[in-house]
C-alpha cells in the first residue's frame, strides 16, 4: 500500500473552484455549498477509483456535475423561482464598479440551460480542452464544441454584445480582478 502524495490531501486546494462551479450550476450559494459537500463525501469514499497522475480537478468536477444532475437539478425544478433566484444574485453583488454590466451578465448567464452554463465554465473559464470536457460530461467532442459555440452565441444575444455595444471591461476594478486571478 503506497501512500506517496495522497490525493485526498490535495482535495482542499480544489474546493474554491468546486464552489464556483457549483455556484454556476445552482445559482444559490447555500445550495452550491451543499452540492460541494455531497461531492466531497462521495469523492472521499471513492478515492480508490481515482487514478493517480490523472487530473484531480477534472475527476472532482465530474463527480460534482453528476451529483448535480442526479440530485439537485430535480430539486431545483421543484422549487423553481427564477425571479427570486435572480433577485438574490443581483442583490448579493452590488458593491463592485461596473456592477450594472455584471448584474446583467449574471442574469443572462442564469438564463442559459444547465449544459450551456456547464460547458462555458469547463471550457471558457477552467480551460479544459474539448476532449477533457467531453469525457467529463460523457458526450462526444463535437457535442461539446457546438454546445460551447451555441452557449456563447446565446449569451452574446442576451447581452446584446456587438462591436458597437461592447461590455465595459476596462475599469480599474475589473482589471484588478482579472489580473488577480490566475487564468485557471
Amino acid at each position, binding site marked *: 500500500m503506497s501512500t506517496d502524495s495522497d490525493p485526498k490531501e490535495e482535495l482542499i486546494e480544489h474546493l474554491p473552484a468546486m464552489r*464556483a462551479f457549483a455556484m454556476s450550476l445552482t445559482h444559490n450559494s447555500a445550495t452550491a455549498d451543499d452540492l460541494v459537500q455531497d461531492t466531497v463525501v462521495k469523492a472521499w469514499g471513492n478515492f480508490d477509483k481515482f487514478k493517480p497522475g490523472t487530473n484531480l480537478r477534472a475527476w472532482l468536477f465530474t463527480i460534482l456535475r453528476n451529483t448535480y444532475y442526479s440530485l439537485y437539478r430535480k430539486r431545483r425544478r421543484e422549487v423553481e423561482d427564477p425571479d427570486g433566484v435572480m433577485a438574490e444574485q443581483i442583490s448579493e453583488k452590488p458593491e463592485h464598479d461596473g456592477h450594472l454590466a455584471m448584474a446583467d451578465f449574471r442574469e443572462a448567464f442564469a438564463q442559459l440551460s444547465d449544459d450551456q452554463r456547464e460547458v462555458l465554465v469547463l471550457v471558457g473559464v477552467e480551460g479544459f480542452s474539448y476532449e477533457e470536457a467531453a469525457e467529463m460530461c460523457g458526450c462526444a467532442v463535437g457535442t461539446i464544441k457546438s454546445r460551447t459555440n451555441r452557449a456563447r452565441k446565446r449569451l452574446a444575444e442576451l447581452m446584446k454584445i456587438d462591436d458597437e455595444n461592447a461590455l465595459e471591461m476596462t475599469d480599474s476594478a475589473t482589471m484588478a*480582478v482579472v489580473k488577480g486571478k490566475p487564468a485557471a
Partner: protein
Amino acid sequence: MNQQIDDNLKRVYADTVQEPLPERFTQLLDQLREKERGNSDEESGDTS
C-alpha cells in the same frame, strides 16, 4: 466577442473562487479523516 464573454465569466467565477473557504469544509475534511482513522482502528480489533 468570445474573449469578452470568457473574461466576464472569469470575473463572476473569480468572485466565488476568491471567497474564503467556509469553515464547514475544513470541518468536513477533519470529520472524514477522523472517521477513516476510526475505521482502521476497528479493523485492528478494537470493538468498544
